[in-house]
């Protein structure tokens, strides 16, 4: 069983789909119950997996490696490290939560909706467990289809535009990724005579710098669109505004992390030299994203698009920390991926809750909700504060480590990035003020029902996680540390290699640099 845990967690939601096929499409409650139970059991599997995970071991765990299409060297190769572990946990938690949150929101095509949701869960987990590039690509693309339907069928008024925009943006990136992937495949064959898509083997392949640059760019573009890194972000607000609540939660919570995960799993360890060269570019785009996302979020009129733009800002932090290429920055980056999933997921759930009551998301339509919905407002406040990174909430741990790491690698980047901390307070508190404070000006807001038991059940686990990660992040940080160190050691090797290449032209500098190099290593 232990060996098959990844297969189980990945494909268990498909079991639910098979079960659902036997339920008549008019039996809505049964459909919902089955989907919830399946997602919940999968959450339990993942918790079991978390418990079995060895927090100090480096390398991949629970590895499975069996040939799939042996002619092309394609393997069913699964395995996780601390980074993927945490992202899988995030996925199973959010998937379970959205099953409850969708209970009343979805009224038409219930069966199709829940099937899409379960399919999506398999796709997402699949991406996080794949260690074979081909398998990775299959899951990456497979995920698109259910999301396309979730936005396109159960979305808002401009759902078709949004769904197509989402798919085209992503497809454009994935096409480049496919080309790069095949290039790698043939290049590996050229080196060793073996056909393989195995990531771990590719890690060891010495790719010449010139080729690395192009392959890095191809992958980076695919991932950048997904993250989204500025200026590839414009699909995001549309997709979020049109998607149903659960779609937004999963989209922001997990799908965006595919991009950042791609960087950390593929770009950094596979093309470390190219990574080093692109540090300035990615960092600057990340900083632009932080500031730009925050500024544009400030002037949004729709709460949902405000949260969407805030995601651009938050994901900018994730990228900035990752490309600090040191332990603090990268750990902060990974923890911030989780944080963003929790906090922004909760924000979308909250927006969904008032939308179900008022059928509007315009900030101007609200005001004074503290009076009519005090419990709701309290949750809203807590989640907002975590989103702006108040200490002892999850957001602080992430942002602090990211900026701390960035400061060590580049002070200017850190100073610029830190302005995002100020701006986040501006747009979030202004929104909060207009929504929950002030006098009730619209009569519709007077007699709104406060949260019911189901809605509290949806938010409480997320609030617990907000404080848990904020106050005691040690278990999470400890589990990702070996993985982060592993990636960083590859980047360090690349640094040495690049330095050597430069030194070959000038032997006099060689001695000096070597000395500097050793001093640096001792310092750490």
């Amino acid at each position, binding site marked *: 069983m232990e060996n098959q845990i990844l297969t189980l967690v990945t494909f268990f939601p498909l079991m639910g789909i098979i079960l659902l096929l036997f339920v008549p499409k008019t039996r809505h409650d049964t459909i919902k119950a089955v989907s919830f139970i399946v997602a919940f059991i999968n959450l339990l599997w993942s918790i079991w997996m978390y418990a079995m995970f060895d927090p100090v071991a480096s390398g991949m765990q629970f590895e499975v490696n069996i040939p799939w299409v042996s002619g092309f060297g394609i393997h069913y190769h699964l395995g996780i490290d601390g980074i993927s572990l945490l992202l899988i946990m995030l996925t199973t938690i959010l998937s379970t939560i959205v099953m409850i949150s969708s209970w009343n929101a979805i009224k038409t095509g219930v069966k199709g909706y829940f099937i899409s949701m379960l399919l999506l869960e398999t796709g997402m987990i699949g991406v996080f467990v794949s260690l074979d590039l081909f398998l990775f690509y299959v899951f990456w693309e497979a995920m698109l289809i259910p999301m396309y339907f979730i936005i396109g069928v159960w979305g808002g008024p401009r759902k078709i535009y949004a769904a197509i925009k989402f798919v085209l943006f992503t497809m454009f990136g994935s096409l480049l990724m496919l080309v790069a992937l095949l290039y790698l495949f043939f290049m590996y064959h050229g080196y060793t005579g073996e056909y393989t898509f195995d990531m771990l083997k590719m890690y060891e392949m010495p790719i010449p710098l010139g080729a690395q640059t192009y392959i890095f760019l191809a992958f980076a573009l695919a991932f950048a669109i997904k993250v989204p890194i500025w200026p590839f972000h414009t699909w995001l607000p549309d997709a979020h505004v049109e998607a149903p609540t659960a779609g937004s939660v999963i989209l922001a919570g997990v799908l965006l992390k595919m991009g950042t995960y791609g960087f950390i799993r593929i770009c950094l360890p596979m093309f470390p030299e190219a990574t080093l060269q692109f540090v300035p570019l990615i960092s600057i785009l990340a900083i632009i994203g932080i500031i*730009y996302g925050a500024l544009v979020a400030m002037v949004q009129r729709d709460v949902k698009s405000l949260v969407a733009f805030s995601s651009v800002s938050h994901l900018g932090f994730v990228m900035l920390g990752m490309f600090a290429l040191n332990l603090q920055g990268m750990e902060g980056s990974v923890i911030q991926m989780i944080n963003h999933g929790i906090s922004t997921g909760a924000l979308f759930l909250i927006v969904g809750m008032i939308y179900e009551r008022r059928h509007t998301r315009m900030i101007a339509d609200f005001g004074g909700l503290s009076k009519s919905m005090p419990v709701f407002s309290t949750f809203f406040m807590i989640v907002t504060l975590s989103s702006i990174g108040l200490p002892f909430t999850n957001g602080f741990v992430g942002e602090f480590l990211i900026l701390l790491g960035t400061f060590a690698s580049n002070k200017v980047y850190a100073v610029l990035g830190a302005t995002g*901390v100020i701006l986040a307070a501006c747009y979030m508190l202004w929104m909060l003020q207009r929504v929950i404070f002030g006098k009730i000006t619209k009569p519709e807001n007077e007699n709104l029902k406060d949260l019911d038991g189901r809605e509290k059940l949806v938010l409480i686990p997320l609030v617990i996680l907000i404080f848990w990660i904020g106050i005691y992040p040690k278990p999470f940080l400890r589990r990702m540390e070996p993985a982060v160190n592993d990636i960083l050691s590859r980047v360090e090797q690349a640094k040495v290699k690049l330095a050597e290449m430069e030194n070959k032209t000038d032997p006099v500098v060689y001695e000096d640099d070597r000395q500097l190099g050793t001093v640096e290593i001792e310092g750490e």
Partner: protein
Amino acid sequence: MEQPLYLIPLFPLIGFLLNGLLLGRLGKKTISFIACTSVGLSFLFGLKFFFDLLSLPDTARIIENVFFTWIPAGQFHVNVAFLLDPLSAVMVLVVSGVSFIIHIYSIGYMHDDAGYGRYFTYLNLFVFSMLMLVLADNYLLMFVGWEGVGLCSYLLIGFWFEKKSASDAGKKAFIVNRIGDFGFLLGMFIIFWQTGSLDFKTALDPAVAHSVFAVGGGMITAATLLMFLGATGKSAQIPLYVWLPDAMEGPTPVSALIHAATMVTAGVYMIARSNVLYMMAPATMAVVAIVGVATAIFAGSIALAQNDIKRVLAYSTVSQLGYMFTACGVAAFSAGIFHLMTHAFFKALLFLGSGSVIHAMAGQQDMRYMGGLKKRMPITFWTFLIATLAITGIPGLSGFFSKDEILWKSFSSDYGSIWIWLIGLITAGMTAFYMFRLVFLTFYGEERMDSHTREHLHESPKVMTVPLSILAVLSVIGGYVGIPHILGGDNRFEKFLEPVMKGVHHSVEGEHALASAAHNGSTELILMVGSVVLVAVFIYLAYHFYIKNIAAAGKLRQRFSGLHKIIYGKYFVDELYNAVIVQPLVVGSKFLWKIFDVLIIDGFINGMAVIIGDMSTGLRPAQSGILRTYTTIFLVGVIVILGIVLIFG
């Protein structure tokens, strides 16, 4: 020594959780019982550990309590751990003591408010955060308290959230503080990457600091300046003071507790705590002293012309905080902390007294509609007068000792100068004037309120007047722990704090400054008498304009109407910030969204889609499905290719 220090902040946290989670389910008595008892327990535990601390020898007065590992990331490691040394002990006692008194007072003041439970919930959270701030044994945990008190300040300023001005003020406070926190964060980064730790024990060890920083070097100057930026936010100094006057939108006990006695002094505490680092950065010290004294006179001058009783006190607070920073800037950290303590007593008393007045006046805060309250509210009046005498620095009261020490140090210290002293002195004169103006307008003269209000005038209930009386006693005696040598005392307060002020004793100039300060007895006495005389003159002026010859005040105002307009309009700094920062930011952001996002990026992408669509439409006739056309085109193609082959082949 290891002791369970966590017991100090624990109870307010429990109170917060109980009142918060059971909100709406508890009676008023239970709510206030939980809230007040929890803070009372904090004070008692604070006392207990204070005496434990005293029982230790001077040089070993440190109690530690490591709770758990908070953030471990490689070589970065931060604990949730507490530290009680003389400095934090003073802070703990002031914070929990004043908080307790104000909690009791609030029972009366907030009695009829619908948000009673919410109020005490926030208040307990505040006390918890503030205690974390002063007990933290590292910068990051201090930052937790730092932002935590900021959050409570935000919540309590905007307590009456239905009022737009209140929620505006809360938001402003949070955002302005965030600008300061930005500096605090960056300062921490420098400290960590240089010293390898954020623990006070390591980062503030003179040996460590001197091994990684060069005295007067760029790094240490940058770090201390950035931390000071944080202090200007929290402690309302130029340029970030603008949030504090607006913060008066909150309930008056909140103004007393958070925006006068405790939270706003956090910046002073932080700098005094970091004295080792600051003493290594003379340039920063100069900046601190100049900003402090400039804020003191600037805010003092605004207070001269305000009519809202709480606004006068708010600007007065900004001004007095300026004194504390001046003290820090001239390396008289203990004097700053001394003034912090006495100020906590008399300013809390002034605010609570004004609350008592406002309570009686049914919410009226404009002094032009007050007057003659002396006989209506005797306890409020007498306690208020004592606080006023204390803040103006009348000999024998607490404010005299602390303010005088700051003035003397700014004159005599090697870091000070005659100019800093002079500005501080003028500010003392202003303080005397605006405080007595306030007293005369409120408590003397004719009753200018409408008849309805007049009928309802009453002294406040015991639950409010007893706290006033306790604070009045403290405002009188609070200064006697620090009687200067020149008056026959031995400044026990300074001596008590000495082990914490390692920076002062580590630097030669610091020692020298202290030595020279001790030896200039006659000068010190002359300056002291001089400042007392000046204060007396300004009190007389206030008496002249607001009691004896009221018309003269109006005439004066008319004669200097331009100046009055500027001061009354608070130098229009809010308007300036709004025009230079806020508006451009909003307009620029709209531009980014509408023009860049929607027009350029999406325009490009949708344009591509349209182009591809159009091209497809253009090509569509080719796929007509008419066989004859296909054959014709095929034939033409064959002929063309054949021709090419024949001609060029």
